[in-house]
């Protein structure tokens, strides 16, 4: 399995993702320029990552321009063919704008950018400490979509407190139902607002991100 990390002109977590994958997780990584289209070196066993940042400045809705980039046309095709795609933060916003994942990411309810450690839990109730850093990370969708996500076990991570309780106080942005990350029904496209790549190195004093990456990429089947 190898990884492709898309570099938009305003990506700023692209190198972080590359470092985390190569140095902390020992993976092979190719960097992909937004103006290129060629993904022929990737098979559906591989994974394309849309990293965090401000793809094209994001003065419009976050990710609204990125979805039209040449590389994104190929990524959409790759995803529809069953290839794995992970969007982190701005990448998650781009996936929602592209229609690859349902719902939208709105301005944080408290109107501020928020960068801090938060706690997440997965469907097995395991709790992880992972940083968030975003101004528009409030997950929003219709009740129907939200119910569908729950029924199909598409909600990967919820914001919770240190002991795993899903509370309003533990929600850093006002996301509906405390949603931090979801996947599509086919379970090959993942979107997360938190940054696991920022928690993969012992130098940083937090390696919970490795567990998240492992779960997303290498677990037999994604936890549902």
């Amino acid at each position, binding site marked *: 399995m190898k990884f492709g990390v898309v570099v938009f*002109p*305003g990506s*700023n*977590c692209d*190198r*972080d993702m590359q*470092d*985390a994958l190569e140095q902390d997780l020992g993976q092979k990584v190719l960097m992909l320029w937004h*103006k290129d289209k060629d993904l022929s070196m990737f098979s559906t066993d591989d994974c394309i990552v849309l990293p*965090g*940042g*401000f793809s*094209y*400045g*994001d*003065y419009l809705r976050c990710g609204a321009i990125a979805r039209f980039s040449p590389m994104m046309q190929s990524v959409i095709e790759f995803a529809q063919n069953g290839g794995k795609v992970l969007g982190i933060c701005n990448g998650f916003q781009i996936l929602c704008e592209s229609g690859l994942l349902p719902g939208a990411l709105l*301005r944080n309810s*408290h*109107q*501020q*950018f*928020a*960068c*801090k*450690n938060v706690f997440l839990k997965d469907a097995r109730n395991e709790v992880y400490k992972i*940083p968030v*850093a975003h*101004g528009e990370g409030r997950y929003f969708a219709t009740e129907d979509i939200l119910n569908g996500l729950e029924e199909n076990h598409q909600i990967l991570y919820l914001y919770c407190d240190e002991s795993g309780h899903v509370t309003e106080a533990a929600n850093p942005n006002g996301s509906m139902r405390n949603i931090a990350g979801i996947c599509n029904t086919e379970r090959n496209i993942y979107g997360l607002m938190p*940054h696991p*790549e*920022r928690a*993969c*190195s012992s*130098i*940083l*004093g*937090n390696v919970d991100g490795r567990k998240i990456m492992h779960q997303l990429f290498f677990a037999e089947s994604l936890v549902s």
Partner: protein
Amino acid sequence: MEITVDTAKQLRLTADEFEVIKKKLKRTPNFTELCAFSAMWSEHCSYKNSIKWLKTLPREGGRMLVKAGEENAGLMDIGDGLGVVFKIESHNHPSAIEPFQGAATGVGGIHRDIFTMGARPVAALNSLRFGRLEEDKTQHLLSGVVHGIGHYGNCFGVPTVGGEVYFDECYHTNPLVNAMSVGIVKAGETVSATAEGEGNPVMFVGSATGKDGIGGASFASADITAESAEELPAVQVGDPFQEKKLLEACLEVIKTKAIVGMQDMGAAGIICSTAEMSAKGGVGMRIDLDKVPARQQDMKAWELLLSESQERMLMVVQKGKEDVVKQIFDKWDLPCEVIGKVTTDGLLHFYMHGNLEALIPAEELVLGGGAPQYDREYNEPTYFESIRNFNPASIKVPANLKAVAEKIIALPSIANKRWIYNQYDSMVGIANTSTNNPSDAAVIHVKGTPKGLVVTTDCNSRYVYSDPYKGAMMAVSEAARNIVCSGGEPLGVTNCLNFGNPYDPEVYFQFVNAIKGMGEACVKFNTPVTGGNVSFYNQNPDGPVYPTPTIGMVGLLEDLNQRMTLGFKNEEDVIYVLGEINEDLGSSEYLYSILHVKHSPAPRFNLDAEFSLQQKLISMIRDRKVLSAHDTSEGGLFVALCESGFVEGLGFDIKTADHIRKDAFLFGEAPSRVVISVEAGNTVEFEKLSGNIPFTRLGVVTSGDIIIDGESWGDVNEWKDRYDTAIERFLDKEEAGAALQTI
């Protein structure tokens, strides 16, 4: 248009300066030329009222790779073929008028100073001063400045890793916004801000030029008055996305070796970059201003010369390599045009559609060349009298010290700044090791090495106000102490000298004495001043701000495994204060903010004692005899103990000293003291190792109780809650208002 002395005065030049210009040119300048002199001889660009004293600072030595002032920022060797590039700069005046853009472009400008030298910025810091947080105006300014810093830094993708914020009424009209950037460069990839080689093309890269920020440099060289809001066009507008692209494109172009020299366009735009690069290389330039990419039609020559539009660079490129450069900027979708060429006559020729608009010897415009340098008068401020008259015996020790402590921990200058720093991306770049293990200075991993850069900004301006000489010394010492408490070795300093109007002899007294104290301390710590910025005129009709010589200091940690953190680690560990505990209330937050004593002496300070303390502490840290180290500063010992406890939710049980009044013991701000925790089994060895450095065994770490002289002061979490929420309680209202506006 006839050019007279009145024209010169309108452009903020003096009558004498106008005469000097005529003599230098041997003719009367035209309007465009006069504009060029106005910008370049402004305080902001020429340092005309400060350079004489700045030259007395230690400006070389240590690990410095370029002399101070020779390049856009300081450059020091950190081994492994790497250098650290760093600088701090003010954006006070724009932020006073338009806090969001003022602060945002301050961040953008300082990062450009770093990457114009070939370095990739890896950390940003800031130092902020506002009026009282209770005031609506302060809440508006704070909210705008924080949003501005976050907006620019978060998008640009460099973590904001540290800073300081103080609130005092002296900053009500004149807030201070100082931004610092730290970058890393490989040996051999540095770029100089110079022009060389006859016929080499001069290229303009980056955003198109508009009419924003025209006259910014001279605007920043005047007091703030009721009319200042009318200067809004002097405030620039920032675009962090453009700057992000500019960064990547510049670093890519440097690798091609096509670049002879490069300088960012900040204050005074094209005129400043062409003049400084030409003067440095001893050459001239012919520039066709009509080739400059413009975003507005019909811009005049003087507007193009003076515009401070952001995200622009001037490059001198090797002849024949123009296409190499163009290709890279095309890739990043950034404008890139040849606008002129290098000449050998030392003259700046500015043409517009073939007409010569200005002809000025480059050397005459710049600092160290023709720009004026003044001696200013100074005399002791009259308020010194009331400082000398302070008598601590007039202050009774309050009966209920716990109630006092509850107020102190919630003072805006002391309380948790999370409302501010949570709005900054502090983790992008995955190198900030302080997120999960906080220490007194931020520790940034130098990728590919076991090393860390240790960075901090510090200045307690009340101490400087009370005693400019000792106060500035204390600012340098505190910065060094913060680095040592984090396990680092101080390397060098960048300073941001924020003062009032230099034509006021009392202000100039503060300036001169602060420089003397700063210089002496920098010599002691072997931390040369690598560069920085002077911001005068932080003054309004009610008076000047406190003298605020902010110190940005960079240190080196050879091995990240030797870093030290500030939080207590385990229950039962023994708590010491390393350094002497004096009975000293001078200039403390306690005296000033709780008891409303506006004038008292700066705390007593001895530079030699401070230096010995730091030497001892660093050796103890390297011997691994210390589990935590935290500098005592504002709020005194009590606040330092609380902060060490808050990290892991631990408390402390301590005894005060009989021979020192209890309020001074808990809240006095005598410098040169560090709160340390030591494993109970290591105390004998610790005490032996301390040698001739005085120490006091205060007590022990508890599981959460705070106990002072046997009396319970409650649980650490109650104190943490007061500390954490004090600032946001003031600001929720401001944010709600802003939210309503966006609906």
